[in-house]
């Protein structure tokens, strides 16, 4: 029933598509990690005109569907005069969407830093920026690395949504290959297995990182 | 008369830690036995095995002449089925150090639960019996309170009433006053003393309170390192222990008062 020969033949195409998928994940995560931290810090600001929009953005982006956000950027950016390839648009959408999730993770990390650290920094007359950069953030991040890792895996599993805006990642490739011979079983199953194997491996990796971090404390 | 509890060479380890190392013990029906010993000596494990919460790794354990884990079928021993285990288990009741009351039920509901769902009593009969038991432990006005609204001593009284409601032949008490504020301890000990005096059932009491153990037990068993070190009437264990180890433990506990 399962045509192994055919499956084997599709592997090169899937391999190339995997590269695109990984590029999208890496790019998206890079944006999410940085933007997420910025949003989390902004939300903690004493100035309401910074804190409130940051909070609202996080809530809105977290509660609305990624696919609609992808479509929004895909159609609206060109109208605003910004031409970008589908891949770049997709990476941007993934990055912004997951920045909202990462912001919540960072928030938990920041809140877990003991009050005494802030007070010690104040006693040493360190400015706000220095306090954050040298004292608080370095302590806030290690405990939340596993949670960030989980979002990395989640983003990886969301990359097929980019097929809706013609990015030729794994799912889109499987559909194209399958359409050639009108036989979808093998390519789609292979893609499914690829995702499963990669996310199980990543989950194990994250567990390893988590244990390493715990043993340090 | 056949012992109601019999252990032969009972061994139990949790991972690499040996909690019980070859315990032999016979308890005749109606006896009040106090079990004393340092922390980690295996006393709680002993009670858990007697309550069939855990199973021995080796050795024989019999409750009222039957093993909870092995039954006879056609004259040959086979692993026990659920029905057999529960039948044997029903002869034993236990009161825990941390009460373990069901937080989502009121006091009277806690006491009614097992009689209704295990003994098949009607809710009305069970409720009547529950209220009578709560009266017996001095909590009739707290019948409709939830555990969170009760003090530690009150919770433990409900726990005792709950265990009594099943009319077990053997009652196990696992350091039931250790989690209580000092001023509440006396009340619980008095309750247990009443139960002991009534001679209605066999009691096995793990306790740190030596004066209490001396005053109401028929027999004291000293546990250390997972085995019984010395076993005898209270006067012997507390006043004239045979072994140096026993003497040292008793002295240390008396001095710490």
């Amino acid at each position, binding site marked *: 029933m399962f045509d192994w020969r055919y499956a084997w033949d599709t592997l090169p195409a899937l391999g190339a598509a995997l590269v695109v998928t990984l590029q999208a994940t890496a790019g998206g995560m890079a944006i999410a990690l940085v933007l997420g931290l910025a949003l989390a810090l902004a939300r903690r600001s004493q100035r309401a005109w910074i804190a409130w929009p940051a909070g609202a953005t996080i809530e*809105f982006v977290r*509660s*609305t*569907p*990624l*696919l*609609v*956000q992808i*479509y*929004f950027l895909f*159609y*609206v950016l060109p*109208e605003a005069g910004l031409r970008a390839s589908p891949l770049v648009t997709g990476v941007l959408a993934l990055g912004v969407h997951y920045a909202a999730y990462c912001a919540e993770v960072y928030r938990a990390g920041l809140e877990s830093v003991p009050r005494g650290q802030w007070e010690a920094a104040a006693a040493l007359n360190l400015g706000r920026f220095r306090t954050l950069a040298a004292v608080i953030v370095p302590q806030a991040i290690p405990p939340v690395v596993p949670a960030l890792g989980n979002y990395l895996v989640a983003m990886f599993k*969301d*990359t097929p*949504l980019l097929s*809706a805006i013609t990015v030729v990642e*794994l*799912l889109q490739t*499987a559909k194209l290959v399958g359409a050639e011979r009108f*036989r*979808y*079983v093998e390519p*789609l*199953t292979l*893609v*499914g297995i690829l*995702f*499963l194997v990669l*996310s199980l491996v990543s989950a194990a990796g994250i567990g390893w990182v988590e244990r390493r971090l715990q043993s340090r404390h | 008369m056949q012992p109601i509890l019999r252990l032969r060479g009972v061994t139990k380890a949790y991972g690499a830690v040996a909690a019980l190392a070859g315990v032999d013990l016979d308890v005749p029906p109606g006896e009040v036995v106090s079990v004393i010993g340092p922390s980690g000596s295996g006393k709680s494990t002993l009670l*858990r095995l007697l*309550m*069939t*919460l855990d199973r021995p790794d080796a050795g024989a354990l019999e409750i009222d002449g039957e093993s909870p884990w092995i039954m006879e079928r056609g004259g040959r021993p086979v692993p026990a089925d*659920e029905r057999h285990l*529960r039948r044997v*288990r*029903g002869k034993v*009741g*236990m009161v*825990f150090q*941390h009460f*373990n*009351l*069901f*937080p*989502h*039920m*009121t006091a009277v509901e806690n006491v009614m*639960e*097992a009689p209704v*769902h*295990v003994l098949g009593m009607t809710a009305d009969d069970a409720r009547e019996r529950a209220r009578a038991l709560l009266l017996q432990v001095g909590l009739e006005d707290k019948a409709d309170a*939830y*555990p*969170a*609204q009760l003090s530690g001593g009150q919770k433990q009284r409900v*726990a005792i009433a*709950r*265990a009594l409601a099943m009319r077990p032949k053997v009652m196990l008490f696992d350091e039931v006053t250790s989690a209580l504020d000092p001023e509440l301890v006396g009340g619980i000990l008095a309750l247990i003393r009443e139960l002991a005096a009534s001679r209605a059932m066999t009691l096995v009491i793990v306790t740190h309170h030596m004066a209490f153990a001396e005053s109401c037990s028929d027999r004291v068993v000293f546990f250390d390192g997972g085995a019984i070190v010395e076993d005898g009437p209270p006067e012997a264990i507390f006043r004239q222990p045979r072994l140096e180890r026993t003497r040292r433990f008793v002295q240390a506990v008396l001095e710490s008062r």
Partner: protein
Amino acid sequence: MLDMLPSLLRGLAVTAGVTAGAAALAVVAAVAAGLARASRARLLRWPAAVYVEVFRGTSALVQLFWFYFVLPFFGVELPAFAAGVLVLGLNTGAYGAEVVRGAILAVPPGQRDAAAALNLGRLQTLRRVVLPQAWPAMLPPAGNLAIELLKNSTLVSLITITELTFAAQLARAQTLRSAEIFGVVLVLYFATALVITGGMRLLERRAARGLERGGR
């Protein structure tokens, strides 16, 4: 803009239908798999573990396409709506199973000891002692999963179900007013998410009342 609204609202109704149907299936799957994973019987644990790992480890959209395009080869032709509800339900149910299992395991072991000491049977212990205490702990994560499900419902637009995102695409193709249409659609999803969150908070409060008088 206003003339677009009726078709968008029709799409929203389909979104609600898909979400509700999948949610019902997810609850059943989550409870069944969660209980199975928390059980002591290997025969129950392993199939449940496979179900959970497969559905959590693969992409929801890939699962959707697989059920819609591959199953026909095995003789099972599912209409798009059924495929959508089935896949989303099973996908969310896999995540829900972990929530159920975690909540059950979080009930203090002393409670099981007390139930055993009272000679309650295994099923009775589960029904009368463990589940009533596990239930309030399941609700906050379940609320998050409900929002995730709402967001995942957009995926079925890619297998031609005419829910809200599909309707938005149609409207955009007709009027080319992308920013307005997708902006409105985002707001509609946000409003729906708020309704779901509100509903879950009500449930949480009702469940907490059962324990609240009892507290912890």
